[in-house]
Structure formats: C-alpha cells, structure tokens
C-alpha cells in the first residue's frame, strides 16, 4: 500500500535509493559524489516514468541501475563535465576519511587503482549479481572484456578479502 501523500515514483525512489547509493559509491568511491550520481539517475528515471510513450518501465529497479552506470560512464567520457561533481578525472577515487569505515577506506583504495569501466563491471557483477552477458550488453563490450575486467578487479580485491574475511565458526 502506498504511503500517504507519496506518489508511486517517490515510493520507488525511496525504496531504491539506498541500493543505488551503494552501487554509486563503488563507481565514484566518494559518498558525496555518489549522492549526486544517484540524484541525477533518479531525475532521469523520473522523466522516463512520467512519459506515456513506451508504456510503463518493465523493471524499474534494473532500469534505474542501468541508468546509473550509463550516466556515470558517459560523464567520464565527456570532456567537459563541470556540471557533474562526481565526474573527476579517471582513477581518482576519494574516500571521505571522516565518514568512511576502515573497510570502506580499504575498498576505496582498491577502487582508486581501477579504471571506471572496471569499477562498473565490479558493481554490476558482484553487487548487482548480473551475468557476464548482461554486463557485456549493458556496457557495450564483449563478454571476454567483462571477464578480463572482472579478473583485474578481483586480483586487486583478493588481498583485502583475505585480510577482512573471517569464515564463520572460526
């Protein structure tokens, strides 16, 4: 049931924003930039939501996620990206030391060494649980390229996982 005074879109946006923010943080490596990215993403989804042509969005969550990644990557590709505060030069991932947890800082450090497309693959494959072929289609790259980028990202993450992952029962 819809909460009082809330539109269908608002309800969707409130429900989906936390997840989008996590993905956005993996892409940007900074909470403030991630917020800006999510806000722009939801604004785009809002416009599409209001349009009647094409009917309803079949899977709003997937649509928003795709919009998020594409917005991030296209901002990176644009030479002039002054409107987008999260569009820093590639490879610049700035954790907010004051707000971040230790793990966040460590992951952000790993992300800083990855290309934007590698981070997109990481977010889609392991946070969104998308298949290799889905990620390839979404990013417009081959499945082989997705696997290569995944491998590169995992190689960087592996030491972190070894240090932070404590098996249950141990």
């Amino acid at each position, binding site marked *: 049931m819809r909460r009082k005074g809330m539109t269908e*879109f*608002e309800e969707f*946006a*409130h429900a989906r*924003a*936390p997840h989008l*923010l*996590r993905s956005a*943080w*993996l892409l940007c490596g900074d*909470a403030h930039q*991630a*917020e800006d990215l*999510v*806000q*722009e*993403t*939801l*604004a*785009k*989804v*809002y*416009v599409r939501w*209001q*349009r*009647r*042509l*094409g009917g309803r969005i079949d899977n709003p969550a997937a649509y928003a996620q795709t919009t998020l990644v594409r917005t991030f990557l296209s901002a990176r590709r644009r030479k002039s990206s002054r409107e987008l505060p999260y569009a820093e030069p590639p490879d610049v991932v700035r954790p907010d030391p004051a707000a971040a*947890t230790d*793990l*966040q800082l*460590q*992951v952000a450090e790993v992300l800083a060494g990855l290309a934007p497309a590698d981070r997109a693959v*990481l*977010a889609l*494959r*392991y*946070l969104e*649980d998308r298949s290799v072929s889905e990620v390839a289609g979404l990013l417009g790259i081959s499945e082989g390229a997705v696997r290569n980028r995944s491998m590169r990202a*995992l190689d960087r*993450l*592996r030491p*972190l*996982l070894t240090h*932070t*992952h404590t098996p249950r029962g141990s």
Partner: protein
Amino acid sequence: MTETQVGELLERATADLRPSADLVAGAITDGRRRRRRGLGFTAAGALAAAAVVSGTVVLAPGNGAGGDHTLVADPSGSTGTSSYAAQPSSSTPAQADPANDGPFPVAPGAMASTLAILLHGKETNTSNDQYHLSAPDGWQSGALDLDGASVSVSYQHSTGPRCDGDLGRGDTSCTDLGNGYFLATYSAEVTTVHGKTGVRDIGVTYYTPDGYKINATASNGSRTDPTTPTRTDPVLDLDALTVIAENPVWQGS
C-alpha cells in the same frame, strides 16, 4: 575467492551508506526541471515545424483545388509502392471506437488536429482519422487537406528491425540517427487499378528507441481521386515532413 564472498565484501563496505533525507526530493525537482525543459522543446519544435511548413507552402503554392481530401498513410511499410489503402496490414477488421483514447500519447481523435497545429493549417476533414487497436501492435492516423492535397501522420508500435519494412518502398533511404533513432524516407507514385499513374506521395518514417514508428506523408493530390494530381509536387517536402515526424509531441514529451 568466490563471487559470493566478493559480493559480501562489497555489501559490507557499503552497508552504512545512507541517502540524505532530501535526495529523492532533489531528484524529483531535477526531474521536473528536465521534463519542463523537454516540454519547452516540444513547443519550440512545434513552432519550428510551423515555420518550416509555412515556408514550404508559401514557396510552393497550390492550385486552389482545395477540398475535403485526405490521405492516410499505409502503415504496413512492406508494400512495393505507397498506397491509399487506409488499412494496416492485418486481417483483423479495423475498429474505430471514438471513446477509446488509444495506446499512443496523442489520442486518435486528436491526430488530425495536432497535425493542423503543427502545420498552422486548417483541419478540413477529420472523418478519416482512424485507429486500429486490434491490429498487430496498434495503429492510428490522422489526415488533413492542405491546399488541395493530403497530409497525414500515423504511428504504430514497431519493435521489429528498424527501417527494414520501408526499404521495399521506392526511393527509400534509411539513416541511423544514433541512440536508437532511425529516419527512413520514401517517394512513390500510386498506380491505380486501371494501370494509370496517379498522384505521388512522399513520406518519412521516424523510429524511436522506445519501439514506435511515426510516419508523415504528403501527396500531390487527394485521396478521392488518386489518378489526378492537383499539383506538380507533393504539398510538403521531405524536410518539412521530417520536422513533423520528429516533433516531440508525438512522443508524449
């Protein structure tokens, strides 16, 4: 290291991230601004269409043989020549229910009047507005008389290959506009059942990434007598028809 472990690691690293209280409100404000900008573009597009079309008419005045002539685009997109047959390529009988708003952003009954606004022209005949909701993917059209010749616009769902359906028409070209948009143009003469070459119609088909095709056509004659041109050239040229087909009003934005 399994995929699950990686997923868990990323979940833990981002678990305490919380959207700010005004994130959604800000997104909606931004979305509304974007939407208004889109609507502004619609109005500008309509004005541009009117300007272009008006220019065309001024440069190519008609012969004064006006009347309640209408032309309806054939949406089948697969015939060798353009046709005046105002039916979709379907064996299902056409349905016309004025009470139904139809599946498209512009309601069936508003097709001709919307076209008239874009043309700054007079809507002389609305009886030929048609829509066929039972046809595959739906189809509807509106037409009007302009200076003794017919202009029409129609649209339908089209999720198949872009442009393929129109390549069978004469003088057809198809351009990939990028981002999922395509524009096909065609020009064809209508041959009557008596074998006499009749009026000529030209048209453009604008494909959107949302799976719609918007078709705008112009003729050098009327539907009531397809064997006798009322003017040398179709009443609008391809550029003017392109402006009409690409107008965002048909896309509901």
